């Protein structure tokens, strides 16, 4: 292990390390802690300029009810779910198939198709913006949740294919060969042999894509407008414009927006990190 385990050091260093840990964490998360504290402050605190001291009163319920009652934040959140969940399902489903095809079959053009997905995944969004907006308009899907989700599914398929293909390649090939010898059809091999083994990969990708899409801001502003279709990221931006200097409300809104991906991360931490660090270890 590197650095040397702290247990091997003398007690002074051990104590030092154990005190440094919480202090470092506090500093690292200071901006977030401040936001969380501010989200329960009263309007009085805000006007008095008490941003960094202890709140004089805890208005947890008042502030959070206020944002849900006075703003369409509930709608924004719902829209976010409506975009995110179909995208996760769609991108994972498509990439299970593409990943399987690219990992199992050695056909001509395999590497080209694979590289197309990988390269496409890295392009800057801006080069897609004008044509994708145009395409969405032509399909009659501009300013709809469907239009946004369809694009996300397509784009995320790139990354998901890379992930799935590498995952399936690492599975024992003998399983597939054995099934073939038995005369099992290709579609049944996919469904009954490979797919059950892909569960960890599916879980990892799902949490990852959930977070990516939930946090998307660019495409939300390009393909949707207004509270009926916009997801929370874009919604928060427009609310920020209305809530000038009402920092307790901005903070409460930010916390609400951050909560679903954070919950997802804590619930599925192992899968999340497995997905994110794909390729970081040989």
């Amino acid at each position, binding site marked *: *292990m590197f*650095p040397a385990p*702290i*247990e091997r050091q003398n007690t002074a260093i051990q104590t030092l390390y154990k005190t440094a*840990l919480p202090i470092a964490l506090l500093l*690292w*998360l200071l*901006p*977030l802690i*401040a*936001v969380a504290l501010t989200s329960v402050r009263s309007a009085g605190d805000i006007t008095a*300029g008490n*941003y*960094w001291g202890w709140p004089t009163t805890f208005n947890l319920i008042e502030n959070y009810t206020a944002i849900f009652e006075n703003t369409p934040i509930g709608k924004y959140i719902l829209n976010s779910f409506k975009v995110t969940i179909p995208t996760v399902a769609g991108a994972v489903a*498509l990439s299970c*198939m*593409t990943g399987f*095809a*690219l990992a199992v079959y050695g*056909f001509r053009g395999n*590497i080209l198709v694979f*590289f*197309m997905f*990988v*390269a*496409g995944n*890295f*392009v800057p969004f*801006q*080069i*897609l*913006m*004008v*044509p*994708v*907006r*145009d*395409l969405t308009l032509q399909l009659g899907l501009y300013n709809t949740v469907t239009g946004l989700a369809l694009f996300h599914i*397509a*784009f995320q*398929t*790139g990354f998901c294919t890379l992930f799935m293909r590498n995952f399936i390649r690492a599975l024992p090939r003998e399983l597939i060969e054995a099934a073939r010898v038995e005369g099992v*059809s*290709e579609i049944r091999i*996919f469904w009954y042999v490979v797919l059950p083994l892909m569960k960890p990969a599916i879980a990892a990708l799902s949490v990852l894509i959930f977070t990516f899409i939930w946090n998307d*801001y*660019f495409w939300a*502003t390009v393909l949707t407008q207004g509270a009926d279709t916009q997801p*929370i990221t874009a919604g928060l931006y427009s609310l*920020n414009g209305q809530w000038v200097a009402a920092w307790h409300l*901005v903070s409460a809104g*930010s916390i609400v*927006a951050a909560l679903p991906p*954070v919950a997802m*991360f*804590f619930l599925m*931490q192992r899968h999340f990190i497995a997905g994110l*660090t794909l*390729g*970081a270890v040989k």
Partner: protein
Amino acid sequence: MTTSALSQRKLAPWLFLAPGILFFLFYVIFPIFESMQISLYAWDGLGDKTYVGFDNYVELVDDEAFYTSLKNNVIWLVLYMLAIPAGLFIALFLNQTVTGIRLYKSLFFFPFVISQVVVGLVFSWFYDPSFGLLNVGLKSLGLDPIAVLADERFVTYGIIAAGLWPQTAYCMILYLTGLNAVDPEQIEAGRLDNARGWKMLWYVVLPQLKPATFIAIVVTVIGALRSFDLVSIMTDGGPWGSSRVLAFYMYEQAFSEYGFRMGYGAAIAVVLFLIMLVYISGFLFKMYKDEQER
């Protein structure tokens, strides 16, 4: 093997690939070429397109705002790389086995999970000239407050600092995973040879972390070139356009309040794409080499 099984095996991959490829072609691959084509036209997004040849690119050459954006992109690219050593540093700090360390690791990773919109809001607030923590701190040191986001000299650095927060968390998690896989025997062998501290890190640990470093570079470059969200949220390109980056400037031009300039926007996007292409080619080349070795 029967012929039907063989032909099935020839056809099967394409059937599995068809839906994914179609989606990807229509939404990602074709639009790249369409954008290149649109960049040769003057177009407001609604009416007819007028072919103007390379006029949009010629205009770019004389566009002050384009150079500001390009310069800022370079600053982003260079400074964003700090996330890699910073992430490594935190990973080394946290790579212990004391009680509760798992929770610490997850909490350190937190900034990456939340949206850049939230990160942007948090940092705008941190920089606020009247009550932001930065200026509260400066005041307590007896210094004059700095309006980071309203000052042309500091604004880009201020936004980059905000971006480095989640990006460092990302690099940290990559290195933590990498450190987990470092061969303990080599470390012990190094210790026997009296390698310690920096020497150990440089000669024994870092070479083994190469895959993590590679991924960290790739995601950091992409992150730096995609820097749209933070600029849009924290400053909207201001003050006076001094914090624009290409990604933001393109959006601004295409959806300009003085009329949509899709062609000009597309030309900016093509430039951004060409910069990214250098990295994409490099990445594909390395992947190709790795594939050959298998």
